[in-house]
């Protein structure tokens, strides 16, 4: 394997959890719900997936447990913001703090345990193509799943009736409600999807990326996922690009240091964030207005009686 290939592989690994978590949040936000609890749901996903994977010695069960944990956290959030029409920003922040704390408690007995690496899945024939072969066709299942998920979400949002309903509700929940669309039900499922994705991203982090559990190991990736949704102007395609730019910037700055380019590492560490700001600027210049945000995003829905 050449250095170039190795770098690309690391970039894919670094980008995948961001992409998965951000996709879930994108769907929730498209339905008009801002869930700032991604970091907490991700931490829960990581803790529960690792606990289950070690207990039952099964990566598959671990992944299922991680997604379930994320979805349960999201259900709690849904109860608060849909059932009681609570402030979404406050509830989301509370969910993050709650999730980080609870994950520490659940994971405590598993501190110090380790898992063996998840074997990459080789697609015969295709993985023999030079450079891109190994990159695209010899990854772990999560990577394929994240790409497939991006395509499915894109098709769902733009090509299906149900996706149109979800977007309409996100744009203007009062009108959608007047037209007889099930605002609560759609949002509930969107929030749950977001939670399951965050849980899956956490599972990836604990089972593939680091292969051990330790409290706070998400280290702010939930927040980056939130920023990516804005960066992508709420579009799945752009999200894919954004996640990979971010992953690439993070990994390349480490390589730039190792190669002794002589640029201060603090500056290099800031590059991904600078890239986000510049991309946002360029995007908004092109559109000339605040771009892509669903009209009802973050507003509590209380139907007229």
């Amino acid at each position, binding site marked *: 394997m050449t250095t170039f290939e190795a770098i690309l592989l690391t970039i894919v690994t670094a980008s995948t959890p961001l992409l998965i978590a951000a996709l879930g949040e994108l769907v929730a936000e498209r339905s008009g719900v801002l869930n700032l609890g991604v970091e907490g749901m991700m931490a829960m996903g990581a803790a529960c997936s690792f606990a289950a994977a070690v207990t039952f010695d099964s990566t598959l069960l671990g992944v299922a447990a991680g997604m379930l944990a994320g979805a349960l956290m999201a259900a709690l959030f849904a109860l608060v913001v849909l059932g009681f029409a609570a402030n979404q920003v406050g509830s989301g922040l509370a969910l993050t703090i709650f999730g980080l704390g609870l994950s520490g408690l659940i994971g405590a007995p598993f501190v*110090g345990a380790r898992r063996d690496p998840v074997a990459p899945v080789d697609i015969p024939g295709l993985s023999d193509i030079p450079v891109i072969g190994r990159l695209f066709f010899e990854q772990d299942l999560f990577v394929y799943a994240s790409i497939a998920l991006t395509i499915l979400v894109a098709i769902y949002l733009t090509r299906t009736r149900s996706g149109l309903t979800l977007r309409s509700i996100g744009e203007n929940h009062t009108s959608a409600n007047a037209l007889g669309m099930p605002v609560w039900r759609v949002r509930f499922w969107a929030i749950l999807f977001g939670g399951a994705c965050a849980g899956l991203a956490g599972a990836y982090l604990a089972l593939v990326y680091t292969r051990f559990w330790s409290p706070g190991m998400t280290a702010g990736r939930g927040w980056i996922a939130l920023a990516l949704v804005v960066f992508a102007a709420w579009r799945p395609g752009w999200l894919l690009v954004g996640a990979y730019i971010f992953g690439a910037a993070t990994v390349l700055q480490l390589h730039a240091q*190792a190669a002794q380019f002589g640029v201060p590492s603090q500056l290099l560490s800031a590059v991904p964030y600078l890239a986000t700001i510049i991309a946002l600027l360029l995007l908004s210049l092109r559109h000339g207005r605040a771009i892509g945000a669903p009209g009802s995003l973050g507003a509590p829905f209380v139907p007229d009686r």
Partner: protein
Amino acid sequence: MLSGKIFGALAGAAVVALAATGAVAQPKDKVKVGFIYVGPVGDHGWSYQHDVGRQAIEKAFPGKVTTTFVESVPEADSERAIEQLARTGHDLIFTTSFGFMEPTLKVAKKYPNIKFEHATGFKRAPNLSTYAAKFHEGRYIIGQIAGKMTKSNTIGYVGAFPIPEVVAGINAFYLGAQSVNPNVKIKIVFANTWYDPAKEGDAAKALLDQGVDMLAQHTDSPAPIQAAEARGKFGFGQASDMERFAPKAQLTAIVDNWSDYYVARTKAVLDGTWKSEDVWGGLASNMVVMTPYKNMPDDVKKLAQDTEAAIRSGTLNPFKCPVIGQDGKEIECKGKGALSDEQVLGMNFYVKGIEDKIPQ
């Protein structure tokens, strides 16, 4: 120097406060000891080892001592947490990260009857001690092991931040390697975090991708050494024994052993003999402990053991003069035959042979 002046003024104020309240050290029947950790107890590294020390106190004085800890305290927000411990009846408070220095000093000044101990800092007061461990002694040993064992002649170092403590570690590691292998090269990556397992792992992978086959780390999680294990390369455990994460890759680990110190200081408070001090322990005082040397040929093991014994007995100092800076000029030798403690604690230069620059 401004900070010196402030320190002097604060120390003076603390002395006045101490005199005014008439606080004289008295033996105590019961002592409550508090700890502030920068990371989670479960980090397997830095904070974990401090917590091992805390548990040692509980075991050493059954019924006499109670301990509490606050984990994952951000350095910027630590004053609140320290003051919280001060207000809730603690007699002795350990703050265990360099970044807690100013907040600890501030709270110590406010509570002259409470004893404070700050790890790795350099600002003291009549009721504020500092303590640190000479990890660079261990890093010199692992440098020699790396220098002997490297096949690519390129060794790597994952650092947290370019602060003196880390820079001194890099220099000691490189000087050790150079002492047995004059042509060895080093690559350095700063993760700019003490604790982000995924990013630490990425930093390690970046180094391994660029031809490093011996990996030292000065960040807190086992992710870097685990990356070395996954690639069939070698690494060194940091702060705690990381063998279970890298049974094939860990050659040895530099373990922070705070237990003896914490027990001694708690006993001093119990006896009423506690004094403000500056303690800098190393291999000789068992504050730094090397785990068994494994996964290496016998001659390398012998070399490591001999070096450890020499440092322990004081016949070898990693920063023995002459120390040559990157510009080829000799660093002024302010200690006896070696750099002084102050020079090591404030180290802000790389030694000759390191081709990188310290990020400013």
